[in-house]
């Protein structure tokens, strides 16, 4: 056997976690049952690998065989749906005797999970289930209803079953799963490149009052154009993902340009909670500067929502 092939097989096998090794070797089907039985898998990994490579050399493994092993490893590295479902269900059932868990797989490698929660002593409540959508190729899951009691347990089940280390709640909420996906997976700016288009001035629709002084008209056009351009740069030419609200918890000092003496001696910040609501928040925010209700550029607190993938914020003075 070629030195390079031996080396390649050795490195490929080293990457396989011990608990999956036997499964993969069996799936590869290159080494026979008898041969695998001669290996003591309880040894140190290096010894196991050495023994395996020696067996492969004996059997004259080719480049193709090595490549096949590689593909099988990739396949198992990819998400094992069955294992995920079993693990997830087991964790919940061990903690709460009474829980109903159902799964449904869809395209895009998404698995929908429905959980009806009970307790040690009560049957699961089928009328208030929680839905989870887990995209197995990504480290993201979306959950419906606000859980209080069972949130830590759900988090633990997801983390362990998906073989991640920890789960972190994002400050992003919406009623539209597609919008959340668009923001989280950054799919909303597919035509991002086109924002630099240079549309000639005449083609843009600017309302003009012909009776006004021509100098004022010019200034108005310049200002309107500036606002349009900044709005376009900030929001892009594409339709915005649909969010219904954004919430800001502010703890900042009052600083006014109106009258310097107001609250001048007060050390404590003003505690405010500000909530923006709209059937389509980002489109509404986009229309504010052109309508003259807001300055352009709009505050980064608002424009960062899709980029930061947050719509719940806590702002304090630095």
């Amino acid at each position, binding site marked *: 056997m070629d030195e390079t092939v031996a080396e390649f097989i050795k490195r490929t096998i080293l990457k396989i976690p011990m608990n999956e090794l036997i499964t993969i070797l069996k799936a590869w089907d290159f080494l026979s049952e008898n041969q695998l039985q001669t290996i003591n898998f309880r040894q140190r990994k290096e010894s196991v690998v050495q023994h395996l490579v020696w067996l492969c050399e004996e059997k004259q493994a080719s480049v193709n065989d090595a490549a096949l092993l590689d593909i099988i490893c990739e396949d198992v590295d990819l998400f094992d749906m069955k294992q995920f479902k079993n693990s997830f269900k087991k964790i919940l059932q061990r903690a709460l005797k009474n829980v109903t868990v159902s799964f449904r797989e869809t395209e895009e490698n998404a698995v929908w999970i429905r959980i009806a929660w009970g307790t040690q002593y009560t049957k699961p409540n089928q009328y208030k289930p929680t839905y989870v959508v887990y995209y197995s190729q990504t480290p993201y899951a979306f959950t419906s209803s606000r859980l209080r009691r069972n949130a830590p347990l759900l988090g633990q089940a997801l983390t362990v079953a998906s073989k991640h280390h920890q789960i972190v709640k994002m400050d992003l909420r919406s009623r539209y799963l597609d919008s959340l996906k668009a923001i989280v997976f950054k799919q909303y700016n597919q035509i991002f490149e086109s924002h630099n288009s240079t549309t000639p001035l005449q083609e843009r629709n600017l309302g003009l009052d012909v009776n006004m002084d021509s100098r004022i008209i010019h200034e108005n056009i310049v200002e309107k154009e500036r606002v349009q351009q900044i709005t376009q740069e900030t929001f892009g030419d594409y339709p915005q993902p649909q969010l219904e609200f954004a919430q*800001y918890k*502010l703890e*900042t000092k*009052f*600083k*006014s*340009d*109106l*009258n310097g*003496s*107001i*609250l001048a001696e*007060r050390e*404590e910040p*003003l*505690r*405010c*909670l*500000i*909530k*923006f*609501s*709209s*059937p*389509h*928040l980002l*489109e*509404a*925010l986009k*229309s*504010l500067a052109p*309508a*003259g*209700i*807001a*300055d352009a*550029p*709009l*505050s980064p*607190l*608002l424009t960062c929502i899709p980029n930061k993938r947050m719509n719940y914020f806590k*702002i304090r003075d630095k």
Partner: protein
Amino acid sequence: MYRNGVQGRYKQTMDSYDASESTPRQSTSSRPEDYFIGATFLQKRLESVRKQTSFVPTPPRRKIPHCSLLQEDVDLQKVAFLLHKQWTLYSLTPLYKFSYSNLKEYSRLLNAFIVAEKQKGLAVEVGEDFNIKVIFSTLLGIKGTQRDPEAFLVQILSKSQLPSENRESKVLWTGWFCCIFGDSLLETVSEDFTCLPLFLANGTESNTAIIGTWFQKTFDCYFSPLAINAFNLSWMAAMWTACKMDHYVATTEFLWSVPCSPQSLDISYAIHPEDAKALWDSVHKTPGEVTQEEVDLFMDCLYSHFHRHFKIHLSATRLVRVSTSVASAHTDGKIKILCHKYLIGVLAYLTELAIFQIE
């Protein structure tokens, strides 16, 4: 709701005065005394109009609400049910020949009217019980000065039909009529009229409509929904923030509606009540009073704090709701009073708005 209703006597006299004096007046009654009453009434109205020196609808300053002396008469138990409820506001023109000694009779008449209306098939709700009870009662102490007429309350209760049940009556609808510091209106009417310009209702709109129709027919008056514009909402927010409170039961909150298209946008701005008070105290200069300048500055501070963070000009949007620990008010003419200490103060402002709408 009442715009196409019967024109009250109050309005009628105004209209007919404009016509030439020699032509006979179209009136519901042909008695000569009515004409004289009408004329006297009208003269007084014109005098009061001439007294107004400016066309500014609200005075540039108002007293901060405080516990009025008369409030000691207020039956706290009876008043408690007025709090923490949402009331829809109307202005009401003076009632002609209303008498406090006839309350039992009015209960009977209104009861019969409601039953008749419901049997006619107007505004019947499926499964509704026709077994109702109407109660008129006075509300003692709900007034600003002794000159204000006594406030009164109308309640519609449903009577339980099953003998086994505890005979508990459920309140279906409540409405009350009051007048707080109504001197400017009281001066202009004769004794035949009772001035209770502020009407507050809680219950279904269909019930309010039926009861309103009865009042209009019986006392020749005219109801009109009382909207509260942004200007007055700002005043209310400032005044209620100025009220001294031992402890706060609610956060201070404002709601703006932004006129952007095609999507609507609502902005809610809640500020900790202690911080709102601190801001107000920093703005406030005249003891015991609130001035236009102070209200404007208070609101401008809130606007500028918001603008600093979001670059949005709240002043270009529409204020639709204000909420404090004293009371909350919505531009559609809805009010909820949370603090019994300042009940009279809140009603005084609303009475002012009602009187202005009538005039």
